[in-house]
């Protein structure tokens, strides 16, 4: 569990993070969204013990970061946005060095490193990290974040340089981690990525948390606006009837549909499909709708 307790950070009279106060429960994949300069990275740096807060505190599983940095760092796995490694070492040498810092014994180190390199498709790559592509470094960064089998995983822009296969692997791994009861905090500006992976979201704007909740809760801001929902099913889907429904465009022999509504009616659509025994392949908000909602929150922060 991650707790931000009235956390603030000031640089030369300007608050990069201003009174951040919320909790992320265990087993959740939490997305931290915000424009550049919103305070996402500063909040993460305080959470990882790299900088100290001006006021307030942050806690990992009830342990205060500023007071017990070593204990907290044993519990977290962190991958920064601009992930850097020792370019004169190979991937396994880099991981071995970091694993020693966690105090892992030789056999644990070896088995863990082999497992992670295999998981991230980096096994058998003998060259030095200096010769790695950005995507390979990012995959190595994810492996490093999981090295100590942490309870809390903090990832800053984890998919920025990944290829489609890397992104798919990342999603699979993150979802498995959450299923294993680990807490995952993902900071990203890639909205579609956050919407696919994260179960709840926090929106930061100008150092303040302007919104927090599930996607369904966040899209309530769009009440009265047009919400686009993408539906994809295995079987042929029935026609939907809902008071908020504006229009529905069916295609591909009624296997796909774009629903336009006055609110997020995904739960009602899901109920209807279940009643009709139609298997759902996709039931997501259209990216434009998510952007619309998030921009509304960003503007709230500006005000």
């Amino acid at each position, binding site marked *: 569990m991650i707790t931000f307790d009235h956390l603030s950070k000031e640089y030369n009279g300007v608050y990069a993070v201003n009174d951040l106060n919320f909790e992320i429960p265990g087993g959740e994949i939490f997305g931290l969204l915000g424009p550049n300069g919103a305070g996402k*990275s500063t909040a993460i740096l305080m959470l990882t013990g790299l900088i100290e807060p001006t006021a307030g505190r942050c806690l990992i599983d009830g342990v205060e970061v500023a007071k017990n940095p070593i*204990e907290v760092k044993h519990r977290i796995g*962190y991958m920064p946005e601009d992930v*850097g490694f020792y370019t004169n070492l190979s991937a396994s040498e880099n991981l071995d060095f970091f694993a020693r810092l966690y105090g892992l014994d030789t056999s644990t180190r070896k088995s863990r490193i082999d497992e992670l390199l295999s998981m991230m498709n980096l096994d058998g790559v003998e060259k030095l990290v200096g010769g790695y592509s950005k995507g390979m470094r990012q995959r190595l960064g994810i492996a490093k974040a999981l090295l100590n089998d942490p309870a809390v995983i903090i990832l800053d822009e984890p998919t920025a340089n990944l290829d489609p296969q890397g992104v798919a692997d990342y999603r699979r791994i993150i979802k498995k981690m959450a299923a294993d009861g680990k807490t995952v905090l993902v900071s990203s500006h890639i909205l579609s990525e956050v919407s696919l992976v994260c179960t709840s979201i926090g929106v930061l704007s100008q150092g303040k948390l302007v919104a927090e909740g599930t996607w369904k809760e966040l899209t309530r801001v769009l009440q009265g606006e047009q919400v686009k929902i993408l539906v994809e099913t295995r079987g042929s889907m029935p026609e939907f009837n809902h008071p908020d429904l504006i229009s529905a465009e069916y295609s591909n022999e009624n296997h796909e549909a774009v629903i336009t509504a006055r609110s997020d009616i995904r739960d009602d659509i899901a109920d209807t499909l279940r009643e009709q025994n139609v298997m759902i392949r996709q039931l997501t908000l259209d990216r434009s709708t998510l952007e619309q909602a998030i921009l509304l929150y960003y503007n709230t922060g500006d005000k």
Partner: protein
Amino acid sequence: MKSNGLPVIARKELRDHFRSRKFLLIFGIFLIITTIGMISGAAEYNKELQQYNERQSVADDDEFGMGFGGWGKPSIMSIYLQVSLLIITLGAVLGIAMGFDLISKEKETKSLKILLSHPIYRDEVINGKALGGLLALAIALGITFIITFAILLLSGIVPEGDELLKILVFGGAAFLMILSYFALSLFMSTVANDSGKALVYTLVIFVALTSLPILVNGPVMSIVIGDPPEYPEQMFSSDSVHRGMSVVSSSVSSDGKVEYKEPEPDPVWEEYNRQIKEYLNKRQSISDTITLISPTMNLQTLSYILLIPDYSRMMSMVFSPVGGDDFEVQETDVFKDIFKNIIALFAFPAAFLGLAYVRFMRMDIR
């Protein structure tokens, strides 16, 4: 909860140094040139020793007792003196090369942020880097001195106790000098944003420290302490013979014998003597102080005192005004003479390692 960052980082740094092409190249050149210098020095020493022995045997057969003992027995120290300048120059380069990118490279490659996110204290990073560098230097110099010893022994030269001690002290001082430049470049690595700037800053200070004593001993000295007192004109009287600090008058008696009178104290000469002594002392103390600031010059001075027999005596003769009671130059204790140099060689790296520590601890990690 405990952290094991210091030994892990120090070990990685040590390994990195010995895997670094830059380090291996400079150390390789250092080792090759030292070895060549030692071999030629040992050959020269053996030749001089043979000549000395031949002179001694001639002197023993010299029934008229003319004596050929004017040139002393050659010293083993001269072999080390021959390579000391090389050790000073290349050693400083090695120290700078090892330290200038230790922190700045971590900043450039963004590995510092990821390193500090691990369960370690921040001071373990800078201490681990300093310790790793210190160990690498100690091993490198240890190897060098073992090789130089081996060359001596293979050349049939066995140092005596006092000589061995002097060689070890010289080795220790050389280590401190190289450590000084390592500490300076490590500090610059924490100050500069990139390795290029760190190297430039370090080289500027290195050049300044090396040239400062030369500058100060030259024109700057005259500006700081003024010109030396003028030699009194009235000293050259027609019937006086200037001998040392005293004036001896002579006269010729009626029977043609030259009679020497007891020296009479000349107040003008005594005043000049006092002023020149004061001037030379001031000049020497400023020169000594400036030399202490520069690790290379400091080690050079120290190596002269240690490796040239009677160096201190010779220098005190050079800087003493002529004549008088002070003309008598006392025997000096070599280790007492180098005490302040050793202290300065400890103080320099300690100061810059301290500065690097403070700077690193206050560094903004964003």
